[in-house]
């Protein structure tokens, strides 16, 4: 951590520009460390024009405290100015050598920490999926507010295009004048190092950024659907948080404990059970500790969950956070299995080098994170259910890693099976196996890669192949070219298109139209909306490969969705299935306090 190298200025506009800047961050959160102090890491962050804030083309840090009503000046992390020849990022960064107390009290470090982890999280998604990913709101920049409110909470607020990070002060923030009604614009400030800042918590930042990124990829996942849908948001956010933290071998090394004099640890400490019991359990204990009262022990408990095949109707898994933890269990179980397999290759004479073991763990986490992120592109745009994720994982990974020599897919399949989640082989239709031949007459390959009308033309000429019923309104929402690279360097170019289908009517109308029985308690004049849709993946030649379909005519699923929405009061005043009635931007803000035990509430 402490470096005696003299700092060098890294010019951004030299002949071969830097792709990344190395930034100091808090590895997990300030409470996790060792005798030397809090555990830090130096991580590469995608290079960008960084103006004071810091502000890049995707993020802007604005340090406004809405409780104390103080606005701090934007942090300046770079030297020189962009147009002149002396602009650059200084490496190693000035925070590298400073004490823990100095970092905790410097708002510029808070800004850097938050920016670095958010930018890295977005970068993982973009590089894995293989294209630029918009936010879910209208705007290029996501605002990051490091000290937004004096509350132990942090959340993605789509209505203000921001992630708001709260803090738990130890004492009132200095400088707020009693009785003052003014908005105070401070020139500089030394923050209280004893307060608890969620903007210094790696897992919180990664978790909330994931909500924001997923909202851009699947904006309809925040609209009324099946209970697995909000659970996926929470589960994926926790998975990304855990695996991002775990992708740093410094962290893994500190979790594996002490090595012997030769830097080796015993093989028995790295069996599946031991890894789970110790390293992963410890990680889960540490993660989320800043918000332990509010997020509760959901993350800790996810490791201790006992798989059950009856989870779908068990009230214990009714609430999105707890339901999402099922996915977290599955991924952590897969991580332990994959790590174990990788270690088998390097274990010699009953022991393994601690450093290598840590590296393998970090690598396993990176690969698994890649698998999970890539799968998102293969998910349907609406009506998400857990088996969809399994199918997407298996199919998307097979495209990138055809021979799976480490058996990742079998491990993942096995973990899902423990919960009774098994994908049918044709869950995602492989169109090359269809009896019908796809029709590409008159289609322009170039247009197909980017034009929604052209994709609709493909759908129109292949309704039977895709089993899409044209009586219902169809709309192609997005079409995007992507280029993905697998861990072995295989490049796969694809085009991914999403379409949805709508049907709206009164309960009586829907019953006549498609035989759908709307729950009795729904008043007769209510506007009810049902959805269907799918994701179509085209290969590099513009041939349709896969179709992940959610049929609008699937009455069982429609009925299940409406019952769920009605039972949980997730509807607007005169409508059902259009909005969930929650206040704007507050969906992720609801604190999950210990008293919300879903098994006991009504």
């Amino acid at each position, binding site marked *: 951590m402490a470096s005696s190298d003299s700092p060098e200025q890294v010019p951004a506009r030299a002949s071969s520009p830097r792709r990344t800047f190395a930034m100091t961050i808090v590895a997990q959160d300030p409470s996790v460390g060792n005798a030397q102090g809090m555990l830090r890491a130096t991580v590469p962050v995608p290079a960008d024009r960084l103006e004071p804030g810091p502000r890049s083309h995707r993020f802007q840090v*604005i340090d*406004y405290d*809405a*409780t*104390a*009503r103080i*606005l701090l000046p934007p942090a300046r992390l770079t030297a020189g100015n962009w147009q002149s020849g002396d602009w650059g990022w200084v490496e190693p960064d000035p925070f590298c050598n400073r004490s823990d107390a100095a970092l905790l009290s410097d708002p510029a470090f808070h800004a850097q920490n938050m920016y670095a982890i958010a930018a890295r999280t977005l970068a993982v998604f973009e590089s894995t999926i293989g294209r630029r990913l918009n936010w879910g709101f209208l705007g290029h*920049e996501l605002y990051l*507010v490091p000290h*937004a*409110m*004096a*509350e*132990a*909470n942090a959340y993605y*607020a789509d*209505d*203000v295009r*921001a992630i*708001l990070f*709260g803090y*738990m*002060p130890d*004492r*009132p*923030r200095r400088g*707020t*004048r*009693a009785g*003052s*009604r*003014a*908005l105070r*614009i401070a020139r500089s400030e030394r923050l209280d190092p004893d307060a608890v800042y969620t903007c210094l918590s790696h897992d919180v930042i990664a978790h909330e950024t994931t909500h924001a990124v997923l909202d851009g990829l699947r904006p309809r996942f925040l609209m009324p659907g099946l209970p697995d849908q909000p659970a996926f948001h929470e589960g994926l956010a926790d998975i990304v948080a855990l695996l991002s933290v775990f992708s740093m071998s410094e962290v893994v090394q500190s979790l594996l404990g002490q090595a012997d004099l030769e830097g080796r640890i015993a093989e028995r400490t790295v069996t599946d059970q031991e890894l789970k019991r110790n390293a992963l359990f410890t990680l889960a204990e540490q993660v989320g500790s800043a918000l332990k*009262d509010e997020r509760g022990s959901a993350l800790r408990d996810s490791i201790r969950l006992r798989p059950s095949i009856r989870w779908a109707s068990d*009230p214990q898994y009714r609430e999105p956070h707890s339901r999402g933890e099922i996915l977290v269990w599955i991924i952590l179980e897969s991580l332990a299995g994959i790590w174990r397999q990788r270690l088998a290759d390097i274990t010699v004479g009953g022991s393994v080098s601690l450093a290598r073991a840590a590296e393998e763990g970090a690598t396993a986490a990176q690969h698994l994170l890649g698998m999970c992120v890539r799968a998102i592109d293969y998910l349907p745009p609406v009506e998400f259910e857990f088996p969809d994720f399994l199918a997407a994982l298996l199919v998307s990974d097979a495209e990138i890693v055809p021979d799976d020599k480490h058996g990742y897919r079998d491990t993942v399949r096995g973990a899902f099976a423990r919960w009774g989640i098994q994908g049918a082989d044709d869950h995602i239709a492989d169109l090359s196996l269809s009896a019908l031949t796809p029709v590409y007459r008159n289609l322009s390959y170039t247009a197909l890669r980017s034009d929604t009308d052209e994709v609709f033309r493909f759908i129109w000429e292949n309704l039977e192949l895709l089993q899409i019923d044209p009586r219902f309104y169809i709309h192609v929402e997005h079409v995007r070219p992507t280029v993905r690279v697998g861990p072995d360097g295989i490049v796969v170019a694809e085009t991914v298109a999403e379409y949805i289908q709508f049907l709206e009517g009164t309960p009586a109308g829907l019953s006549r139209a498609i035989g759908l029985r709307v729950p009795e308690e729904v008043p007769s004049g209510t506007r009810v909306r049902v959805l269907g849709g799918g994701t179509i993946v085209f290969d590099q030649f513009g041939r349709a490969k896969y179709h992940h379909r959610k049929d609008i005519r699937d009455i069982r699923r429609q009925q299940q969705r409406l019952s769920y929405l009605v*039972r*949980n*009061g*997730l*509807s*607007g005043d005169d409508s059902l299935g259009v909005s*969930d*009635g*929650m*206040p704007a*931007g*507050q969906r992720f*803000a*609801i*604190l999950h*306090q*210990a*008293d*919300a*035990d879903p*098994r*006991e*509430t*009504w």
Partner: protein
Amino acid sequence: MSGPAAPPPVLATVRIRMYQVGFGDCFLVSFEYAGQAEPARHVLIDFGTRQLAAGLDLADIAGEIDSHTGGGPDVVVLSHRHQDHMSGFGGSGTDAVVGRWKPRLVVRSWTENPAAPADATGPGGTALRAGLDQGRAFAGALSQAIAASRRGLRSDVRELALAQLANQASIDRLNAWSQAGTGVYVNYGQPLALDAVVPGVQVHVIGPPTVAQHPAVAKERSTSPEYWQLYQGLTATGAFDPDAGTQTAADARLVGPERWLVERLQAPQLRSLLRIVTALDHAMNNTSVILLIQAGDRRLLFCGDAQIENWEYALTVAPDHEQVLDLLRGVDLYKVGHHGSRNATPRTLFNLWNEPATRDRAMTALMSTKTGVFPGTNGSHTEVPRDSLVTALRQRTSLSSTIDLQPGVTHVELTAPAFGDAPFTVVSSG
């Protein structure tokens, strides 16, 4: 030579009156004895409101209680220190009547004991009490910082903060009544000799647990004095003054994203405040006294606003919880917790009454509530009373709710014989 001791009075009838106090609780449980000589004994459980029913005020109700008890109850129970359970005891226009009462026993939670030793975890543990005191101080400061308005987020925050404050007059009266050994402060499992004042009646105290019994209680931020002191400090600096919008972002000459964001963070800040005050509200609900009253063959369950965290000790953690569960299986009359909200009737409790051996036994439920005070936001399941709970109660019990009373009707009255199987029946709603 003195004659043989008079035989103890024999319970004949249990009579319960649920008074119409709108969104609040006020229950009079009267125990009547065989033979003319022995007067009935009256136990008044809570007397307060947050929002009255139309056409009735607390003075009217006080007058009714006075006449039904012949000059005041023998026992007063205060489930917990929220305005809607205690405002009637003083300062709400009821002093002329209530001031004449002389209860012989006043039952409150251990958290209310003013003379407790300074021990953090014992029955008189001050850390939790100090925490709640500080919380109330914060709520008081906050309610003053926000100007009164009729609707909107600001109003919600202010109303909830105000609801945490019980007027001093009612506290003073309860303290005055509790002097000279009249006041008892109870926790889980503590013996409560009610039968000295109300012959033939036993009481099991099944909540709240002390910190020593259930350490989890003290770990929550919302019970820590430092946490609330901090927020109080923030209020003093004007930090939580949501009306401090006199200088806008534009006035401060901000432009661009900074201005955009600063203007839009006001509403999230109010919601943050609302969450914080809600945490205090829950912490105070969980100090509720839970009483299982055994009178002859009748079992009455009164639990104030106890939420699941208070209940969980009795239902799952306490060393003798199995015996408690058995007692609870036999409940005849259940006073619905927290005005019918979603998290104050644990399913574990409700399921006890739907087991093969218990599902056919007649039961009565009483719910004192008012719609519209907490309409809840969609998807949050927080409407009070909670629809799904009311449906379940109507299916399993004979539910009497103050919502169903005609305007101007002051109470609903039920009786049951103390012995035998006959269930409670409604005598009158008048």
